């Protein structure tokens, strides 16, 4: 199964045409909950055709601030009303000192943060009565780290007993920006509870820096890392193509989705040749 992020920029063309045929769509609850009128009609139309996966933006699971339960309550209603298959969020913080920043800031890789974040994930999971798939985010600088990224992520996954949203592009971006081997990272990452995969494009802005823009096509090294990841996973995990900016012709997005599906098919159901 390969899905696509449902964007307002192409909602009309997507719903009226047949260039794009995803298995599911993904939205951020924050952009669609408590919304009526024009956009509610569009979402309703989309949900008549496609199952929904969700990817939150504002939960800020990594922030020092406590969880916002009134916000979570609205998310919970939205997930129930839309029969959302998955609720995923970022291993980052986007709110601090009671102020939202609307972007994904990196959590310090510390033991204190592991404990704090794991506890917040568990609280949120208990409240929502479902598992959350937590995504490893792209980050451009560490903040006061006491351990490396891999140990931090593995510790959170173990302590929080949550699912993993494995964004293969983010692993690639981080490995480039922080100079490690992405294959080794996948080898050593606790991928047992991978519930969801993200794939996206990025932009190299300097010789030593890639920014995770979601504004370009997926590049070959990321496809290769995806293939490697699928071989390790050996199970059919839903994959999402993220494209948030610089939207091309929908047929181009479908081509990328087909490519992802064919990599999956080849890994999961390899064609076996009879031995003569």
């Amino acid at each position, binding site marked *: 199964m390969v899905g696509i992020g449902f964007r307002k920029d192409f909602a009309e063309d997507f719903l009226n045409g047949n260039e794009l045929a995803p298995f599911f769509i993904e939205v951020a609850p*924050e*952009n669609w*909950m*408590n*919304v*009526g*009128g*024009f*956009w*509610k*009609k569009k979402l309703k139309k989309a949900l008549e055709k496609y199952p929904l996966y969700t990817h939150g*933006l*504002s939960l800020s699971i*990594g*922030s*020092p601030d406590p969880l*916002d339960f009134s*916000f979570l309550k609205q998310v919970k209603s939205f997930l129930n009303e839309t029969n959302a298959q998955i609720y995923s969020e970022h291993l980052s*913080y986007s709110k*601090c*000192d*009671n*102020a*939202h*920043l*609307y*972007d994904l*800031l*990196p*959590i*310090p890789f*510390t033991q*204190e*943060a592991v*404990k*704090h974040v794991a*506890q917040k994930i568990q609280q949120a999971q208990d409240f929502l009565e479902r598992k959350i798939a937590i995504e490893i985010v792209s980050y*451009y*600088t*560490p*903040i*006061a*780290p006491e351990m490396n990224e891999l140990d931090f992520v593995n510790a959170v996954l173990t302590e929080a007993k949550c699912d993993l949203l494995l964004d293969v592009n983010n692993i690639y971006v981080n490995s480039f*920006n922080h100079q490690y081997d992405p294959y080794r990272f996948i080898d050593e990452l606790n991928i047992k509870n991978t519930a969801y995969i993200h794939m996206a494009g990025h932009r190299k802005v300097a010789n030593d*820096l890639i*920014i995770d823009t979601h504004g370009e096509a997926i590049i070959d090294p990321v496809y290769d890392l995806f293939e490697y990841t699928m071989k390790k996973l050996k199970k059919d995990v839903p994959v999402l193509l993220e494209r948030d900016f610089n939207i091309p012709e929908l047929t181009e997005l479908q081509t990328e989705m087909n490519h992802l599906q064919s990599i999956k098919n080849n890994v999961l159901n390899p064609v076996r040749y009879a031995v003569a």
Partner: protein
Amino acid sequence: MQLLNSTQQNQSAFANYCRTGKYSPIKGVIEKRAEHYRSLVYNIIDDTMQSALPLTFNLLTIEEWDRFVNDFFCQHNCRTAQLWRLPLEVHEFVISSNYYLQKKYPFFAELLWFEWLEVELFMMDDKPASFSLSGHILNNPLVINPEFHLQYFSYPIHTKVANDIKKEDKNHHFLALHREPESGKVLFTQLSPLLARMLEILGEGPRSINELLTITEKNKKTKEGVICFFENAIQSKLILGYKN
């Protein structure tokens, strides 16, 4: 459990840098890379404000706009988890901080409020209504579209380009905004004080035009004009129909 001070303080310092753009060294942080966070965060706020507040953006000089975005983001703690609701907080910030631009543009807060109302009406959750399409224009109680808002302004911000509004334009301006049910578009209707009063009454519950005329103590002379207004309001779906 609260985070131990160091982790929390570092997160707080980093977030503060992203909001203000003023960097003081944080352990482990690569300053050059941190700048990307600052510009990503700032651009999100700037883009959101530009697209939700196009009239205000056009009114201000580039310098005024940049300072406005910066002041708002530095000084105001954004509470909403939903970015589309941000313009409401921008308006709140201007009022509560008695923002300096109100001196140069006395209608500044009203303009922001007007822009927020349009966003809110376009985005807000659906409100159910029950009504019938058939009825007598004078005798049957009219059902107002529940997705409407009645607003009084002291400046003509909905009829004049913001740059042309003068101090002398200060007067009584009434406006109805409503969401057209099929298209979801937000429509604006200028109102006389009498019509504004009538819509206010309809907001409390269905009334017939005859009843509205009696309540507002108007005579036959105004009747024709009022009927004409409500016939148009039915067309534009400001009035949805008649009480069942």
